[in-house]
């Protein structure tokens, strides 16, 4: 019997010979106990494969260290060039099925303009909160509906948004935040998305509600902050900075920075204020006419059906950021240079942008920000994302010590459009995912790869849902792997 158990392990390890397999068949046919062991062993194996080791690992072994600044000391003899490389190659099966493409999702749209934050440490901060929040998720919200526009250009929804300024110039736009809040913005409105659960209203008219999970959305404005504690409310800010808040349901706290006051507003309360402080609170019976309204109108890319492979329109965003720099006694001769062949793919490409800071008293930094967006068939949503290098050139001799630091991160986002066959809950017990040929598969998501002799860890996480498109965040503690392969596909409807 002991031999038979051994054969089961060999089968599980796929090291069993043909002869041994015959022996195992005989033994399994004869012994119910052995069959039970066989089944239980496979279940244990499956549990080990599927268990969320990243979560379980917190209590089982020392916590992995993600992110953080990698600081290395370099001598002058390095020779004048240091490089931090970010290389992400997404290769897909050679299925270049030609399909009719809808127009590329790109801004500005007819009724809104979105300007993402330019880079992680750009000087053009639009709010004091931005720097603090920038370190967080690359995608904070999605536009899930637009309306009130004549024959405006179609957009594939949901349309993902990072942190940045959203100007609604015509009609209205509904933004669903990653943490449940649904915010309707009525033109003309200038609004800043600052996190997955907060925004900044500069001017205009917004209505905050939630998608049923309870939003707890914070709305900042020049004079204060409105804290939603489970409700829906509307806010309007005029050109003269007068503002009004009306609570439709539940409770809202309004922190007034001008007078350092706090007002708790309940259903039916209307607060009207000026920039110098609070003016009045009154309870009214009917919803004021200025509160944003409108029926949702979704424009989603269609799903083609018919014979042969299922053609599903999908929108893919690829986005990467990398930073690196030097710090030394004198940076007078340092030049930072970014080269990239990133974002070659079958769709249109947003050009790479990068910024550069050189300051004698600060570490020199260079950031790059690359973004690709393309619409294509699931079979081949994008082709190839190449390599990007951050190169630091030393034109003159610099003083010791030289500190070099670098980091990088990249994200792949795939919006599966109208398909809603899966739900966010899919990944609650399987936060990591991998793709197989024809269908989303659930598997282990941590990934180790040797990069230039150093082991770097890459964590792949996924989120998915009707209003939460599939999102991967690849976060590397050192450098991204030289290549990653994904192939996408879906079950037929």
């Amino acid at each position, binding site marked *: 019997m002991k031999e038979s158990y051994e054969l089961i*392990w060999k*089968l*599980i*390890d*796929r*090291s*069993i010979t*043909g002869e041994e*397999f015959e022996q195992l*068949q005989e033994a*399994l*046919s004869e012994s119910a106990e052995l*069959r*039970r062991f*066989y*089944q*239980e*062993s*496979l*279940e*244990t*194996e*499956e*549990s*080990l*494969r*599927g*268990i969320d*080791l*990243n979560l*379980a*690992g917190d*209590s*089982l*072994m020392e916590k992995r260290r993600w992110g953080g600044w990698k600081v290395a000391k370099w001598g002058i003899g390095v020779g004048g060039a240091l490089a931090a490389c970010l290389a992400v190659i997404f290769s897909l099966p050679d299925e270049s099925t030609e399909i009719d493409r809808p127009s590329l999702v790109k801004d500005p749209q007819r009724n809104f303009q979105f300007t993402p934050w330019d880079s992680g440490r750009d000087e053009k901060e639009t709010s004091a909160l931005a720097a603090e929040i920038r370190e967080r998720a690359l995608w904070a919200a999605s536009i899930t509906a637009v309306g009130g526009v004549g024959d405006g250009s179609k957009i594939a929804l949901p349309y993902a948004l990072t942190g940045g300024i959203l100007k609604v110039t015509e009609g209205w736009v509904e933004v669903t935040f990653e943490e449940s809040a649904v915010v309707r913005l009525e033109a003309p409105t200038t609004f800043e998305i600052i996190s997955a659960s907060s925004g900044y209203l500069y001017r205009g008219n917004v209505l905050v509600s939630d998608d049923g999970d309870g939003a707890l959305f914070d709305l900042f404005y020049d004079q204060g902050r409105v804290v939603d504690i489970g409700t829906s409310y509307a806010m309007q800010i005029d050109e003269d900075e007068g503002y009004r808040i009306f609570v439709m349901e539940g409770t809202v706290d309004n922190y007034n920075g001008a007078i350092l006051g706090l007002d708790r507003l309940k259903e039916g309360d209307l607060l009207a204020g000026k920039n110098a402080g609070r003016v009045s609170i009154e309870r009214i019976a009917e919803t004021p006419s200025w509160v944003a309204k409108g029926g949702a109108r979704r424009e989603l890319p269609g799903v083609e059906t018919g014979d042969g492979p299922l053609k599903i329109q999908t929108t893919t965003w690829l986005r990467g950021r990398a930073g690196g720099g030097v710090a030394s006694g004198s940076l007078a001769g340092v030049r930072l240079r970014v080269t990239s062949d990133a974002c070659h793919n079958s769709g249109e490409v947003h050009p790479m942008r990068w910024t550069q800071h050189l300051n004698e008293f600060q570490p020199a930094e260079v950031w790059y920000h690359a973004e690709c967006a393309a619409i294509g068939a699931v079979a081949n949503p994008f082709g190839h994302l190449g390599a990007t290098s951050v190169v630091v050139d030393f034109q003159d001799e610099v003083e010791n010590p030289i500190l070099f630091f670098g980091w990088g991160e990249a994200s792949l986002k795939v919006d599966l459009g109208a398909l*809603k*066959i*899966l*739900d966010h*809950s*899919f*990944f*609650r*017990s*399987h936060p990591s995912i*991998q793709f*197989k*040929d*024809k*269908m989303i*598969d*659930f*598997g*282990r998501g*941590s*990934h*180790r790869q040797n990069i230039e002799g150093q082991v770097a860890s890459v964590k792949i996480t996924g989120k998915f849902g009707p209003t939460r498109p599939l999102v991967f965040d690849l976060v590397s503690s050192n450098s991204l792997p030289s290549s990653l392969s994904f192939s996408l596909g879906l*079950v*037929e*409807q």
Partner: protein
Amino acid sequence: MDKDLDSAFVNEIAQSQPMMRAYLAKILANSSSTDDVLQESNKVVWVKRADWDPETPFLKWAYRICYFQAKAFMRDVGRERLVFREELLEILAEEHPRDDAGGPREQALIGCLQKLRQKDRKLVLCHYDSKESLGETAVDLGVPANTLSQRLRRIRIQLHDCIQRTLTANSL
């Protein structure tokens, strides 16, 4: 099927993936094609979702679909090296996993991992956390593949025994 039912169905599929895979691995003799058959089964499960009665156990229904998909797979790839004989296949297919095969087993596994020696635990976590084959892990660790295989096997037997003890104790 309305939205709520779809949502419930999606939850059922999601929660059943490990059990469905274990079931398929069992009748397919742990074939490397197990994942492919699971995907095919998932497709059929989804297409036939209207046939599922929420009042009946989802897994029992899903296992049946898995079984037929496995049979279809074996028919299509007759050259697969390791395929169970028909009689044994029928027996294995009929013996469904126990009710505690899902969440309770995973909970027990976490508890049992904590009872392992630290270096054994690290080895298991590293091996399963990476996508590497056993041979690749061995190269990473600089040990012969056979040594690693034996060590992992011992640890897995310990885990298996521990899980069974835990589940038995919990069911009392």
